[in-house]
C-alpha cells in the first residue's frame, strides 16, 4: 500500500507562460517548487488570476511547463511520448468547474468514458459505473442526459467520472463554484471519500469557507503565479471518509 509520504507530483522551479489572451508570453506561474504526496487532499487557493487554473492544467497534463521540471508519478512530463502522456492522463481524474459532460451521453455513459478509454471489459465497466453512481447517489439518474440534470447533479456525475477508474491523482477546478452551498458540501464529502487512501486530490477554490470544512486539508496558496510558503507544513494524510461517505448522497 502506498504511504502518505510517497511523492506523487514534484514541481522543480516550474514556470509557465500564458498561451493565449492579452498576456500571451508573460509568466502565469513562476518558479514553482513543491511536492504533492500520495493520499493528501490539497486545497489550492489564491485570488483570481493567481495561476490556479494554470497549475491545474500542468497537473492534468493539459500543458507542459515552459521552464523547470515536473515529475508526475515519477516521470518527467517533458520527456513523455504521446502514448505515455495518454497513459499518465488515465491515472488522473478531472473535475471541471462546469462538469463538462458530453451532452449526448447519459449520466452512466459519461461516467463509463474513462473505463472505455482504458479498454476495460464491458461487464467490468457496467459493474464499476453502477457502483460509482450508487456511491454518488445518482443511481436513479443513470439514464438521464446532462441537460436533464441540475448543476449539482452534473457535478456529482463529473466527480463519479473522475473517480471511477481509481485514479492516483484527482484534479478539481473549483467544482463547487456553480452550485448552491448545500450541494457544495455534499460534493466536498464525495471528493474526500471516493478515492482510496493513496489518492491525491488537488482542488482549486477561492471559497475560504471550505478551509474550515476540510480542516486537515493542506493549503497551497498561489499569489501572482508564485506559491506562498509551499514548503511549510509537513504533509498530512487526506482526511478519512466521514461516517456517511460510503452511503449514497442525495441532492
Amino acid at each position: 500500500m502506498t504511504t502518505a509520504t510517497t511523492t506523487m507530483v514534484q514541481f522543480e522551479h516550474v514556470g509557465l507562460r500564458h498561451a493565449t489572451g492579452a498576456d500571451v508570453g508573460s509568466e502565469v506561474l513562476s518558479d514553482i517548487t513543491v511536492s504533492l504526496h500520495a493520499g493528501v487532499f490539497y486545497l489550492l487557493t489564491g485570488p483570481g488570476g493567481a495561476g490556479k487554473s494554470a497549475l491545474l492544467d500542468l497537473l492534468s497534463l493539459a500543458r507542459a511547463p515552459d521552464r523547470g521540471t515536473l515529475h508526475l508519478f515519477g516521470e518527467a512530463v517533458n520527456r513523455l511520448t504521446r502514448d505515455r502522456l495518454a497513459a499518465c492522463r488515465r491515472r488522473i481524474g478531472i473535475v471541471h468547474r462546469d462538469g463538462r459532460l458530453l451532452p449526448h451521453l447519459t449520466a452512466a455513459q459519461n461516467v463509463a468514458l474513462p473505463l472505455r478509454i482504458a479498454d476495460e471489459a464491458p461487464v467490468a465497466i457496467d459493474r464499476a459505473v453502477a457502483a460509482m453512481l450508487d456511491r454518488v447517489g445518482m443511481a436513479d439518474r443513470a439514464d438521464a442526459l446532462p441537460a436533464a440534470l441540475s448543476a449539482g447533479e452534473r457535478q456529482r456525475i463529473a466527480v463519479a467520472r473522475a473517480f471511477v477508474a481509481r485514479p492516483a491523482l484527482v484534479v478539481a477546478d473549483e467544482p463547487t463554484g456553480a452550485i448552491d452551498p448545500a450541494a457544495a458540501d455534499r460534493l466536498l464529502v464525495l471528493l474526500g471519500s471516493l478515492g482510496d487512501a493513496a489518492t491525491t486530490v488537488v482542488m482549486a477554490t477561492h471559497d475560504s469557507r471550505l478551509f474550515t470544512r476540510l480542516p486537515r486539508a493542506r493549503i497551497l496558496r498561489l499569489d501572482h503565479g508564485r506559491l506562498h510558503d509551499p514548503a511549510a507544513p509537513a504533509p498530512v494524510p487526506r482526511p478519512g471518509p466521514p461516517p456517511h461517505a460510503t452511503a449514497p448522497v442525495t441532492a
Partner: protein
Amino acid sequence: MTPGPAPFPATAHDDRALAALLATLVFLAIVAAAVALGAAGSVRMLDRSGARLTVQVPAAAAGHALGLLRATPGVARAVPVDRATLLRLLRPWLGEDVADLPIPALIDVDLDDTATLPAIEHRLRGVVAVIRIDRADRWLAPVVGALRRLLWAAAAFALLPVIATPLIAGRATRHMLARQHEGVALVRALGATDRQLAAPFRRRIAGTALAGAAIGGVAALAIVLVVQAAVAGPGSDLIAAATPAPRDWVVLAALPVLLAVLAIVAGRHTLHRAMGAPA
C-alpha cells in the same frame, strides 16, 4: 476503446453534405472521363480511316488498276466501288443520263503501316496515265482536330474532381474536428490516445467517402450506359467508336474507387496533422 456510444456524435448534416459533394465530383469525373474516352475512341477510328484512299481511274482501266493495287506491297485491301451504286448517288446531281457521262471508276484502298503513298502513286501512273488519289485523312483532319480538342478538354474536366476531392475531404475533416473540439479535448484529457481519438473520425470519413462515391458512381455509370444504348441504333462506326469499349468501362468503374481512396487518405492526413494520430 471499449465499444459503446460514440463519444463524438455524428452530425448527419455534415456527413450528408460531404457525401453529396463527393457523389457530385465522382459523377462529374465519370461523365467527363466517358466523354474523353469516347473522343479518344473516335480519334483512333478516324486515324485508322486516314490510312484509306479513294483512287479514281478511267473506267476502262479499272480492272488493270485494281490488279496492280492488289499486287502492291502495303495495300491491305483494294475494293472497287459498285458502279450502279455510284451512278445512283450521282444521279440527283448530274441528271438521269449520268450513265452516259465519263464517270471514273472508284477504288477504295486500305493501306497498312508499310505503305508509302508516293510509291503507290508512282506505280499506278506507270500503267494508268490519268489517275486521281483522294486521301481520307485530308478531309478528316478538321474532325480529328476537333475531337482531339474535345478529348483534352474532357480529360482536364475529369481531372478537376481528382484534384478537388482531397481538398474537399480535408476541409470537411477540419470542419468535423472543429465541431467536436470540446469533446475531443475532454476525451483526450481523460487519457485517450491519438489513435483512439482519431478512430471514430476515420470511420466516419471512410463511410461517408464510400457512400458518396457509390452514389455518384452508380448514377454516372447508369447514365453512360443509357447513352451508349441510345446511340447504338444508327450503326455508325464513328458513333460506335465514341462509346466506351470494355477496357474503358474498367477505367470508369475504377474512378469512384480512386476518388473514395483519395478522400479517405486526405481525411486521414488531416486528422494526422490535427491530432498527431498515425494516418
